[in-house]
């Protein structure tokens, strides 16, 4: 007896083993894996659909609310040079920053990126858009000074081929010469040593070559370089000694090297201020500096009526604050709508739950009827009903309750939105209420009455507490739907009855300020989640029942 029991006990002290000796846990996991895999396969289509159509766009939208790469991508040199600038020390940055700005800006305007940047910065400071467009048109004024002088010196400086031979590697030039239209353009390769000899020119020409090959898809042997290359060449020749250069076009280069000393020059800073005096303003430069980083909290600050300043975030002026008011109004109206739905829906749900089933079914159809009608139609119907020349006003005037000249204003304001949305969201309150009430047996009310409770006490002490989960479920449904509602406030809300969602839609489709729209949406999402959390803490999400 003791002999046989001893090994069993030692075996039990270790992990439990299956019949074939593998640990039981492992064996169980293997047995369940197939099941899990099959379950996963079953939900895979939905999962993929949700990920692609719901999670990914939301993630992208959330990302847009902080993303700000456009400034540093369009003006990479400028933002680098501007990093050290202290706005308190001087009104505008020094020459090196303007030099960087000149190269960035010239390249940006050739690639037509400067207007996009203007639009982006205009969200933060009005006038940026026109400044960018103006400067885009006139940045040539600076480069032309050098271009013309090189051109005067030698016509070849305005030709494509000598430039290509000077800057490009010989084997690349050979490939270019053999290129025929329709073939792939060979990737540009700098001539050996040229980057050391003429660093700026090599950099800028490289940008030009990349753009021409990749975006224009034209031959560099046919396309004369942009004027900005000449400016870079001037700067390089002023700084470098090219006497030892022996590559292609050495003659032309050396002649130019000798001549540049006598060239007429123009300061970058002066040039830009000449184009638009705003370039000398402190605000423009602080704005660019503040929005240099790739990620910004600027959209979020805007969304709560604040703005970035040199001294950190500050509230906007009273008359510029709109979003906070809108958020407050959205919350308030959603609450009013939720309460109206409870008041109107509770008796209906009670009737539904207590009538004989045939009558209840008929009533149920009436409750569901709005669901089968387009939202737009219902909202428009309210427009017909509520407007000053509408049905309700006509009836009131006919009955003599309202004078013809003082017809009630019930639409294009908060009242209109509340009435229409209460009507539209009512089924979402009634259905959860109904399904909860259906589970409350009538014997509870009878029991309460038999115990001596009046009708009201029986209802309030016994029936109502048991229907609270239905109210909770309905309220959460209606409130969350209301807080993000768009169509109805848009149609009947006028100016005082619109929601934050209407503002989001405006930024998405009209002002195209997607970053701000994303920030507003993120805040809205955050508020809803927060309310949900608070609700869970107070009421308990377990108490929410849909049936």
């Amino acid at each position, binding site marked *: 007896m003791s002999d046989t029991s001893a090994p069993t006990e030692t075996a039990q002290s270790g992990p439990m083993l299956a019949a074939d000796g593998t640990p039981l846990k492992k064996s169980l996991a293997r047995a369940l894996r197939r099941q899990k895999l099959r379950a996963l396969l079953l939900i895979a289509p939905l999962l993929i659909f949700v990920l692609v159509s719901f999670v990914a766009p939301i993630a992208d939208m959330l990302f847009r609310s902080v993303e700000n790469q456009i400034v540093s991508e369009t003006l990479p040199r400028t933002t680098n040079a501007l990093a050290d600038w202290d706005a308190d020390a001087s009104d505008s940055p020094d020459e090196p920053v303007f030099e960087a700005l000149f190269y960035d800006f010239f390249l940006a305007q050739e690639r037509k990126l400067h207007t996009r940047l203007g639009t982006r910065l205009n969200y933060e400071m009005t006038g940026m858009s026109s400044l960018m467009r103006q400067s885009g048109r006139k940045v040539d004024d600076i480069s032309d000074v050098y271009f013309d002088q090189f051109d005067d010196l030698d016509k070849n400086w305005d030709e494509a081929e000598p430039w290509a031979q000077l800057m490009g590697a010989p084997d690349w030039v050979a490939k270019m010469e053999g290129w025929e239209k329709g073939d792939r353009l060979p990737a540009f390769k700098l001539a050996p040593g040229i980057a050391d000899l003429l660093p700026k020119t090599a950099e800028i020409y490289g940008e030009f070559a990349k753009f021409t090959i990749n975006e224009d898809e034209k031959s560099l042997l046919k396309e004369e370089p942009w004027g900005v290359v000449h400016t870079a060449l001037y700067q390089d020749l002023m700084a470098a000694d090219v006497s030892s250069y022996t590559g292609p076009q050495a003659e032309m280069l050396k002649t130019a090297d000798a001549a540049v000393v006598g060239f007429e020059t123009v300061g970058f800073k002066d040039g830009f201020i000449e184009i638009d005096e705003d370039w000398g303003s402190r605000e423009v430069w602080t704005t660019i500096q503040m929005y240099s980083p790739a990620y910004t909290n600027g959209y979020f600050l805007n969304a709560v009526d604040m703005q970035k300043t040199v001294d950190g975030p500050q509230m906007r002026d009273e008359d510029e604050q709109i979003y906070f008011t809108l958020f407050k109004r959205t919350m308030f109206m959603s609450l009013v709508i939720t309460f109206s739905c409870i008041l109107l829906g509770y008796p209906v749900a009670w009737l539904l739950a207590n009538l004989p089933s045939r009558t209840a079914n008929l009533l149920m159809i009436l409750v569901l009827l709005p669901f089968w009608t387009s939202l737009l139609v219902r909202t428009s119907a309210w427009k017909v009903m509520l407007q000053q020349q509408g049905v309700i006003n006509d009836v009131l005037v006919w009955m003599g309750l309202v004078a013809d000249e003082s017809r009630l204003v019930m639409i294009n304001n908060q009242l209109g939105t509340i009435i229409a949305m209460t009507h539209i969201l009512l089924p979402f309150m009634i259905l959860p209420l109904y399904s909860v009430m259906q589970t409350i047996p009538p014997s509870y009310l009878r029991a309460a*009455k*038999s115990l001596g*409770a009046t009708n009201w006490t029986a209802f309030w002490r016994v029936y109502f507490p048991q229907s609270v989960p239905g109210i909770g479920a309905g309220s959460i449904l209606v409130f969350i739907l209301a807080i993000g509602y768009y169509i109805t406030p848009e149609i009947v809300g006028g100016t005082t009855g619109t929601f934050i969602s209407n503002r989001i839609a405006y930024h998405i489709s009209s002002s195209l300020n997607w970053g701000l729209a994303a920030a507003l949406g993120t805040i809205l999402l955050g508020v809803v989640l927060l309310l949900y959390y608070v609700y869970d803490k107070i009421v308990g999400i377990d108490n929410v029942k849909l049936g």
Partner: protein
Amino acid sequence: MADTAETDAFVAFERVQKSYDGENLVVKDLNLSMPKGEFLTMLGPSGSGKTTCLMMLAGFETATYGEIKLDGVSINNIPPHKRGIGMVFQNYALFPHMTVAENLSFPLEVRKIGKSEREAKVKRALDMVQMGAFGGRRPAQMSGGQQQRIALARALVFEPELVLMDEPLGALDKQLRETLQFEITNLAHELGITVVYVTHDQTEALTMSDRVAVFDDGRIQQLAPPDELYEKPQNSFVAQFIGENNTLEGTVTKISGNHCEVRLDNGELIDALPVNVSAEGERTRVSIRPERVEFNKDRLQEGAHLLKAEVLEFIYMGDIFRTRLRVAGNEDFIIKTRNAPDQVRLEPGQQIEIGWLPEDCRALDAI
């Protein structure tokens, strides 16, 4: 006798009728009076009107015609909450959002009884049903039997004189049901309350009640103490509904005082007690309880009529033997015999003769 019962009746139904749809009567001309302290059971198949009667008494249904009196006062127009009648429901109807103690204190609160008195009464009521330790629990945390005890305590806590019980034990298993039957009757007698108890379980009705009202088709078919109900059914329905019963059909050939002769349809003649027959030539259905059938001639009266029977089946049931016979064409004629040492065990196929005392064979109405 009828007059005195009605004058000092505690609960009285007087010519009460009830119709839900205006076409059919669910309760037809109900007359019933109960003295104080009585335990009366309304027994009947579903749809017989017993629950409707209870609901009318509780005030949840109104009588279409007639009067319902409580302690001599008509309560037709008194709303349920003012009737002061305790009620126990089949599904317990304990308020799920309140604890047991809150459930019990509810009827006291609505009666505006002070807190300390309330607590004392709740405690006493809980102790009464041996549930003193459960005051803080919620109904959902208790078993069915415990919930029904609480429901009982709640119906009694405000000390009503009349308590209605609507199939209170219907959802419980057999053993628990038997325990609670015993407890309920004991409590009722101890407290001296009047109880109207509705059930469709005849055993429950017989074991618990002072009197049983058998309902069928909207009428009380018989209102009598359990033993009388079982031994002296007044009509075929009651005989059939209460306990096991053998029936034989035939025609009355001779009737005199408390004895009559019935010629069965196969020509055989039997003795019977005329209950629901009055004239010769009348069709009748005679009813004999299985345990009153005798096949030992020594125990029968001199000159009693005997019937031929063939044993079809012998079933051993422990305390009793149950034997199925073919008698006068009826193949479901059952006899029950006690499992005593000298008891004869009949064999299937055996031919025997059976008989009974004339007073055990009741000639009732033919259906």
